[in-house]
């Protein structure tokens, strides 16, 4: 596993995302209200580019005629067949036991610490004053 600097903090706004390629893997990095999540950009169902999908909420119901809408922006819906994944866990909503999208560890680290390395940042000049989003792949 190598650590990759993918963006400066502030570059991905809350509710936003950045698509990157790390170690040959297409990965989407999401900002969920200041928390960051990195998911493989490939739906386990039929291989669609999951991280290009819509961020949505979760509609649930306990009985016909009633519903709740919760967790706005925390479910990622595949652009192909609409499979929904929990962006926090990578779990599929309709098949949580068996279907999961790969999640990668994300940390936010000060430039000062990163300057000491080791990390991979082909396109970055790391400044000691700035904080960065780091994904481990």
């Amino acid at each position, binding site marked *: 596993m190598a650590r990759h600097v993918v963006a400066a903090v502030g570059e991905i706004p809350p509710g936003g995302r950045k698509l990157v390629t790390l170690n*040959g893997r297409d990965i989407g990095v999401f900002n969920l209200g200041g928390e960051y999540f990195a998911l493989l950009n*490939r739906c386990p169902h*039929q291989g669609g580019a999951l991280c290009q999908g819509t961020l949505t909420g979760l509609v649930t119901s306990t009985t016909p005629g009633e519903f709740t809408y919760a967790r706005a922006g925390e479910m990622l819906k595949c*652009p192909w067949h*609409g499979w929904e994944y929990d962006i926090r866990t990578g779990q599929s909503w309709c*098949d949580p036991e*068996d*279907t999961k999208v*790969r999640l990668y560890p994300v940390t936010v680290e000060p430039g000062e610490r990163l300057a000491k390395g080791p990390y991979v940042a082909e396109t970055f000049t790391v400044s000691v004053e700035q904080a960065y989003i780091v994904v481990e792949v």
Partner: protein
Amino acid sequence: MTPDDGPAIARDRPAATRLKVIDCDIHHALPGPRALYPYLAQRWRDHLDRHGQRKPTPFVASSPYPKTAPALSRTDSWPPNGGPPGSDLGFLQEQLLDRYNIEYGLLHLLAPSGMDERNQDLGAALCRAINTWQHEHWTQQDQRLKAAIVVPGEDAAASVAEIEHWAGNPDFAQISMITHTIEPLGRRRYWPIYEAAVRHGLPVGLHTSGFNGHAPAASGWPSFYVEEQHVVALSQQALAISMVCEGVFARLPDLKVVMVESGFAWVPSVAWRLDAHWKRMREEVPHLAEPPSHYLRRNMWYTSQPSDEPENPEDLRQIIDWLGWDRVLFATDYPHWDMDNPDFAFRCRMSEAERRMIYAGNARAVYGFA
């Protein structure tokens, strides 16, 4: 389906070792509402501007779109030309034909439909315009793509004229009609179209589509798209039963009908039930010399998408055994949201020979591709 982070999907394998695919259901689209105007007489351009199309739908704007996704399509399929999904040949080549090693692709235009048009002269003009546009902008631009001759099927004479106009042109691999029709498609008013199809060796492709004012299932209008998504397959079953029982295939043993986007797991059970009824009531339909199952297996083929998915994926093998491995034709339905990726469409085991039949060989035989 466990997490994996390998990029080992088919596009990474060298093309030479990959399975060739014939895709029996691709939806191209007009880039804009006036794209057919260059192919319509001034009389019809004025008519469309002043009167529009007159379709047999019960209410204005009652067509239930977007159907789970805008334009019913994958959200990543909107092309850079600014038009709707399926309207940009270059993007379709990139997202579908090149990526999945598609040797031939059968085009089905869903809208507009000349056959749905109540004004029959406009319907015929629209069909001619659509066919000319398909030829010029699609099949002449990429030889992998094969169009269907769209016909104004409620007017058999005009349909035969349209077939005669294009027959013999290798860019057109079949004839297509809508399926929600004024009468069930087995009725004799449609037979001249089937006779022309046989005369020219062209299959008839029937993709679930169209409006006839009736609910797609006779039990009434569906409340949800999830219902409608399946109910259209029920209407295809009624259509297949009509064609068999009216004697279309008894009269035209060489007629080939391809049922598009309605599944195939239902075919064995429909065949069993019809055969049982036929044994007891055959004096009512003496024109059926053979049991109904004979015609369902001899004259009809069934496209795969959306693939039937039994709880135990291996059970699908049993269903295809009952149906016949030569009956199933692979289809993606690109760019629609429920498209099947050829690499994932079937979750059961298949031998190399079975795979080759379903993904290309069966379609090659039906459509007579080299």
